[in-house]
């Protein structure tokens, strides 16, 4: 006759009480949850492509070169948005890059240890401020502040097309400035990590040759970290391209292509935020979807390049890349 003890033993032998059974479930459950990420990206890509097909079929490549955006007559050309996105992001990087490089060098090489943590915290906080808050600050503080500056620049340098426009305050320059503030923290954090990953031997070799501290940073350290810093900038670019709210609030939302940085413009995320809910025509929605698809593809490529570059310097996970 089988006793309870025998029964337990036989169950144990079959691996039911020992938990090997449970371990199997555990492994496959966690795997399922991890697989959700793949499912999300796959669905995202599929939906964007499927929903933008009407626009892709109708306009093909002309979508990228067309300058007319006319929902009433179903003519859609995305060039003004691409132009606005590229120029505002480029402006932002141009302004943010020197400052963030200097700040990263200070944080990783020069700052006394007791100052590093508080400073890093402040810069993290800069990254944590919500986009709409930068937006409202941009509308009510930055734009009125820019107006007289733009007027003055226009008076002195108005013969240069760059500064020839009317000084509204709202426009490409305001968007570039806001974006610069918003990409600063990520470029600083990643560059700082990359600089910290430079082996001490590089510095010591420079000192041994009689280099000063600054010469050691400028020469071997920066050269070693070059690829990673480039990665940090590209990561910042990815952020700038996709930024929506703050830009929408200060750029003026006018689909024109103007060489003047005072003029209002329009970016790809802004047109999505402004028109998507009001779009009724099938082609209008498809055209907006195509803009989203473009944005998606560009950010994937940009992020992949950036991570490869950062990995090439700081092996292992670039964990400074905080969201």
């Amino acid at each position, binding site marked *: 006759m089988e006793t309870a003890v025998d029964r337990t033993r036989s169950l144990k032998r079959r691996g039911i009480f020992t*938990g090997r059974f*449970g*371990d199997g*479930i555990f*492994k496959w*459950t*966690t*795997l399922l949850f*991890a*697989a*959700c*990420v*793949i499912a*999300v*990206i796959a669905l*995202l890509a599929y939906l*964007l492509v499927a929903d933008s097909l009407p626009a892709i079929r109708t306009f093909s490549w002309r979508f990228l070169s067309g300058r007319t955006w006319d929902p009433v007559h179903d003519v859609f050309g995305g060039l003004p948005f691409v132009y606005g996105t590229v120029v505002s992001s480029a402006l932002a990087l141009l302004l943010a890059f020197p400052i963030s490089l*200097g700040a990263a060098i*200070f944080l990783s090489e020069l700052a006394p240890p007791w100052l590093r943590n508080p400073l890093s915290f402040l810069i993290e*906080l*800069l990254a*944590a*401020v*919500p*986009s*709409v*808050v*930068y*937006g*409202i*600050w941009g509308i009510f*503080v930055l734009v009125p502040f820019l107006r007289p500056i733009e007027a003055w620049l226009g008076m002195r340098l108005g013969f240069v097309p760059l500064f020839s426009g009317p000084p509204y305050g709202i426009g490409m320059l305001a968007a570039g400035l806001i974006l610069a503030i918003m990409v600063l*923290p990520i470029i*600083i*954090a990643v560059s700082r*990590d990359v600089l910290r990953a430079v082996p001490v031997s590089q510095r010591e070799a420079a000192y041994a040759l009689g280099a000063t501290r*600054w010469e050691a940073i400028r020469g071997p350290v920066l050269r070693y970290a070059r690829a990673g810093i480039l990665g940090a900038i590209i*990561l910042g670019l990815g*952020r700038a391209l*996709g*930024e*929506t*709210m703050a830009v929408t*609030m200060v750029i003026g939302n006018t689909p024109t292509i103007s060489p003047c940085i005072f003029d209002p413009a329009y970016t790809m*995320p802004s047109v*999505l*935020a402004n028109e*998507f*809910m009001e779009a009724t025509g099938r082609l209008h929605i498809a055209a*907006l*979807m195509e803009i*989203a698809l473009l*944005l*998606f593809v560009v*950010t*994937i490529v*940009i*992020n*992949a390049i950036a991570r490869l570059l950062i990995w090439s310097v700081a092996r292992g996970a670039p964990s400074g890349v*905080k969201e």
Partner: protein
Amino acid sequence: MWVVAVLCVLAAILPLVLVLYYVIAQGASGINLDFFTKLPKPVGEPGGGMANAIVGSLILVGLASLVGLPIGILGGVYLAEFGNNRFAWTVRFLADVLSGVPSIVVGIFIWAMVVVPTHRLSGMAGGAALGVMMIPTVMRTTEELVRLVPMSLREASLSLGATHWRTVFKVVLVAAKGGVVTGILLAVSRIAGEAAPLLLTAGSSPFWSTRIDQPMPSLPVQIFTYAIQPYDDWHRQAWAAALVLVSLVCVLSVAARYVTRGRFRMVR
């Protein structure tokens, strides 16, 4: 050289100081009991508050956690415990990709997934969009922190006869708790201020809205709609809402630091 580097740091922190200064200076006047307890008033009538948007934001963050936390934490556990294969590398790479996808594109994704089939903007859709945005942060912090738990702890548990899953839930995750909480707080502080995806998914509403199949107002969307209208009273309220939002984010950031203090150094 010192001077230039210090100036760069100051230039980087100056915007933070300016933003905080204006948010506090402009927002403080709009903060009163009405702001937290009253519904928005129609244009032209002074007073009113954003109680419905505050509650809406809390509900949306809760819904987002329902989506983002299980996937993030369990997925992160998978990556740390079984993550030495090609599948795990793909997941890691795609989590990084997901964190780089613009929030508005995530909004469009959920719009096509949830709003189109159900024919209405809803709190559910908003929560799903924010939840998707939480996943990468929670997943990668969980993975890193679970990896940091010393092997000897696991071995001790296994040698006492515990199974792998018990070891993970009763020993490893408990040891990594502080870090996982940090990841969650960071993720919440990131999504709490998101407006772009909510415009396309949760929409907005001037009334009380606690049903998740109805449009749901939220603080960030309310700030946006109020700030771009030409009414002074609305501007004042938008600034007040910005102050509430920024305080929330600051508290969450400080809490995230406090939780990890001393235990494991946050890998960054």
